[in-house]
């Protein structure tokens, strides 16, 4: 009986510790143009749906690497880049699905813990002119940076970003 309560106490401490450590790990410094912990929801050829990896925007190319799989899209072939915001369950994957069946509504309770994410959607054309699309999700605050990097590398967008506040108004010298 005493062992069971110790086990429960240890489990509770480990769970709380996990929640405290995870945000610290997410704040690791990253190289410019590199966006780790990006999930490719769908669209890139040769990469599985919902694969997590690193998105890189460099040398005129958007590159997504997940393990040994890699997909490249030339920035100049991207006809539209759109960003959005969403949220996802803090505990996802297989563990998240299993926890949905937890007793006494514990699965539902865990669903209330959510993390905010950014969504980035691109449309691009291949060499034969065929239209493709891809959707990525990434930690919040990164999508706008990806969009700016892509536009700087030659991508296009139908929703232009707001002009920088430091720019002089039109008509002034």
């Amino acid at each position, binding site marked *: 009986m005493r062992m069971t309560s110790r086990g429960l106490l240890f489990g509770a401490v480990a769970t709380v510790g996990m929640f405290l450590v995870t945000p610290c790990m997410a704040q690791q410094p990253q190289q410019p143009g590199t966006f780790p912990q990006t999930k490719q929801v769908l669209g890139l050829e040769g990469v599985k749906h919902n694969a997590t990896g690193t998105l890189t925007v460099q040398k005129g190319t958007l590159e997504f690497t997940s393990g040994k799989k890699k997909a490249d899209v030339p920035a100049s072939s991207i006809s539209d880049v759109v960003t959005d915001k969403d949220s996802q*369950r803090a505990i996802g994957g297989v563990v998240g699905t299993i926890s949905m069946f937890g007793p006494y509504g514990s*699965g539902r309770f865990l*669903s209330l813990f959510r993390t905010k994410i950014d*969504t980035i*959607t691109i449309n691009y054309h291949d060499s034969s*002119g065929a*239209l493709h699309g891809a*959707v990525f999700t990434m930690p919040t605050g990164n999508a706008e940076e990806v969009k700016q990097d892509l536009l700087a590398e030659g991508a296009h967008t139908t929703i232009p970003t707001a002009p920088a506040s430091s720019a002089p108004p039109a008509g002034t010298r």
Partner: protein
Amino acid sequence: MTRTHIICALTFTVMASVFTASTGLAQDSSQPKISSSSIQILMVDSKEVTLPAEFQVALYENLVAEVQKTGKFQHVYRDGDRSATDAPDLVVLHSTVHGFKKGSEEKRQVTTVAGATSINIHCQITDKTGKSLLERDVTGKVRFFGGNLRATYDFAKKVAQIVRQSS
């Protein structure tokens, strides 16, 4: 008395389901057949309804993937593919969004009954000249498990089923 009520309810349910199934089969048998070796799938048109970009792209990509999986066409061309112009018996799949309700994954997981996402799309298959060969209204939904984008997968599966039955 209670048992009688249960038996009556069960009988009614079985009869209703048999009737629904037979009606569905009758519709399937009356479907026009499309005999073509190639299809071009156009980007989903969402001028009437504001559809988030990720949903539009997910609808299109899932549609291409699911129609390819059916194996009914030798070539599945994407929107804008220049090589599609050389295909002799090309048919074109047009999809127009008529309704969209973005639900909430959180609400679905917490309440089970609320927060469903649904997308109503009018699908039309035409030949090269624009003559309509098949028209259907298809609804993609996600009610319980999965994110909102799963509704796009549900839609694509239903369209693929229609393509299977009509070719």
